[in-house]
């Protein structure tokens, strides 16, 4: 009797879960390209992306932007809107219940001749953001459950007024933060494995305010950069090798003499923080 009941329950659950007749996915591709018409007009880019893969990279000379989207039209709704120097890009999920939805992809190339104000938000995405050599004035990044690689392989010619990184449950790597040319970096991490690499061509001192939830945080710092760490939080392991505790802060040996300085304020809980020193030849 009991096995029959179980059988009925399983059958009912299977019926409820049955997504209906299978149908072909309606894949669509959109590519939009716009050339630069005025060298110094800043471009604000808003990206709001639900799920899938996201790539941002530098484009060729004379390019303003080139955006490519590939998506399942039954499940996503795209937005490419350029107006008054503002580019809005989005890929919204619409009808996904009961469907085996495959996530789409978005690729964006940005020109390197105009100042950029980048505002990127994405959810469950795998993102490769290469901002090398771009003239980034403001940068805001917010991610959900994602795997993100952020690269600044070449120096930013502009002074970056704002760098905000809000990372959710994620694996996050930021490479070449020394190239960002920013005075302040705000980082807020939820759960995950985070690596912040401060190598690059430092043009000014940097103050990094880091808030980290549950997870591991690795700071890769060039050996020739002076570093000071002020740590606050509960149950946080801090591997302070190469740092000397002076009062309530940790400082590198060259803190007083270094040409460029990195000041780090860490507020973390239930995690581990590790500092890895990078020699000049590895930089």
């Amino acid at each position, binding site marked *: 009797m009991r096995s029959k009941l179980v059988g009925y329950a399983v059958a009912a659950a299977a019926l409820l879960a049955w997504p209906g007749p299978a149908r072909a996915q309606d894949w669509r591709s959109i590519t939009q390209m716009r050339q630069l018409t005025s060298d110094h007009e800043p471009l604000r880019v808003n990206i*709001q992306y639900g799920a899938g893969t996201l790539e941002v990279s530098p484009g*060729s000379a004379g390019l303003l932007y080139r955006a490519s989207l590939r998506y399942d039209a039954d499940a996503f709704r795209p937005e490419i809107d350029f107006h008054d120097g503002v580019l809005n890009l989005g890929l919204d999920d619409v009808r996904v219940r009961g469907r085996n939805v495959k996530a789409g992809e978005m690729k964006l190339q940005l020109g390197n001749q105009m100042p950029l104000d980048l505002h990127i938000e994405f*959810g469950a995405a795998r993102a490769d953001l290469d901002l090398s050599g771009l003239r980034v004035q403001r940068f805001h990044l917010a991610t959900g459950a994602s795997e993100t690689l952020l690269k600044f392989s070449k120096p930013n010619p502009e002074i970056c007024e704002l760098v905000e990184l809000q990372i959710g449950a994620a694996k996050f790597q930021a490479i070449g933060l020394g190239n960002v040319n920013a005075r302040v970096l705000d980082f807020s991490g939820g759960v995950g494995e985070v690596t912040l690499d401060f190598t690059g061509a430092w043009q000014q001192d940097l103050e990094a305010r880091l808030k980290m939830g549950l997870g591991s945080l690795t700071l890769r710092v060039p050996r020739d950069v002076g570093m000071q760490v002020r740590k606050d939080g509960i149950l946080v392991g801090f591997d302070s090798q190469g740092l000397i505790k002076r009062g309530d802060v940790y400082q590198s040996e060259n803190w007083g003499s270094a040409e460029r300085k990195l000041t780090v304020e860490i507020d973390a809980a239930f995690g581990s923080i590790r500092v890895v020193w990078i020699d000049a030849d590895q930089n």
Partner: protein
Amino acid sequence: MSLSRSERSAVRLSVAVLAVAVAAGPARAQNHASPAGVVARVVQQATARAEQAAARAEQEQARRRGPREPQRIVSSEIQISRDEATLSLELANGRDAEFAIRDGRAWYDGEDLGEAARGGDLDRSWRELLARAMDASSDDLPGLLSSWNPAGHPALDQQLESMLDGLTEMPAANIAEAVAQAAADADLSTDSVDRLVVRISELQRRVERLQSEDFPVRVDARSRGGWFTGGPLRHLFRGLSGVISTAILFGVIFAIAFATIFFGGRRFIEGVADTARAATTRSLLVGVAASFLVIPAFVLGIIALAISIVGIPALIVWVPLFPVAVGLAILLGYIAVAHAAGESLAERRFYTADWFQRGNSYYFLISGLGLMLAPFIAMNVVRMAGPWLGFLSGILLAVGIVMTWAALSIGLGAVLLSRGGTRPVKGAAPSGEPEIYAETTSA
């Protein structure tokens, strides 16, 4: 009938020239005997001068532009889907056009260019071209598009060639200037001509302004802030808050149950739990019936008390206490069912979780409550993954709701049947000791 941009420009130029000629007519007619001949001559002269002025303007434009170079595309948009393949171009001079194969037909700016069957030569060739164009750099794009040559289907190709090569025509903005210049060259500076030229120029500017406004290349307009209102962590935070809410609910119910047992209410809980286990179906039926009758009973009680002089003072007690009593009965029933579920769970074989099997009301409650709230926890955990497993979270939610409804109904019925646990319904004796003890003794 829709006209292309070049056709519209030609019409505007002709209208302007004709207007200039007609307006200039009376001034010249004064010196000639035959009015018809004078008008014809003046029109001819004005037309010739306007053409010369336009040619000069074109030459000037060409001189300014320098050696002719490949057309510059400032914006392009390519869409490829199952049903359509569309190319939209905007050139540096402001000209734009859309080329498409859609629904088995070829289109140029909304103009039907003929059949282009899905999967046919033209459709395939066009899609291949657009696929290559998607990857082409902006410098390579004009050359790539110009080199396209579908055999046997010239219409779309011709329009594309025209778009890319046809910028030798005068920009619309210069037409009014040319007309004004023509009028000036023709020494037709009468007031009416001046006003006409000014008016034409003004209208031209308005046309250009209207054309240049609202350029958004919106693929699919939607209001911002809909799906992303809560930010990218929406699903994660929603799921997490759901888990925390359920955990808090668990804690609150357990705290009440703990307090009840601690302060001597164990026998009531156990009495109701025994009833729920021994007479599950009866409890369910009684509970369902009670849930339907509770409001009528409340109302009837009020009426009965209100119509009797003796009962009126009792209303003061009845009105507030009846809902409280019902609420307490439901809560007691739910806790008792959780207790019963914990007991049942402990009787199963959970070799790896011995703590489940300890014969303690607190453990029974923890495990039973956990079991009953597990679907909600699971649903919220699944929710954290985003909308992908929406159907699964829906099923879990439905399971949780049904389980909760059943627990509440059985609990209420058991409370009523056992008179609040004071007279537990005794069912068939449990089939011997729990199997775990049998396992232990045989070991």
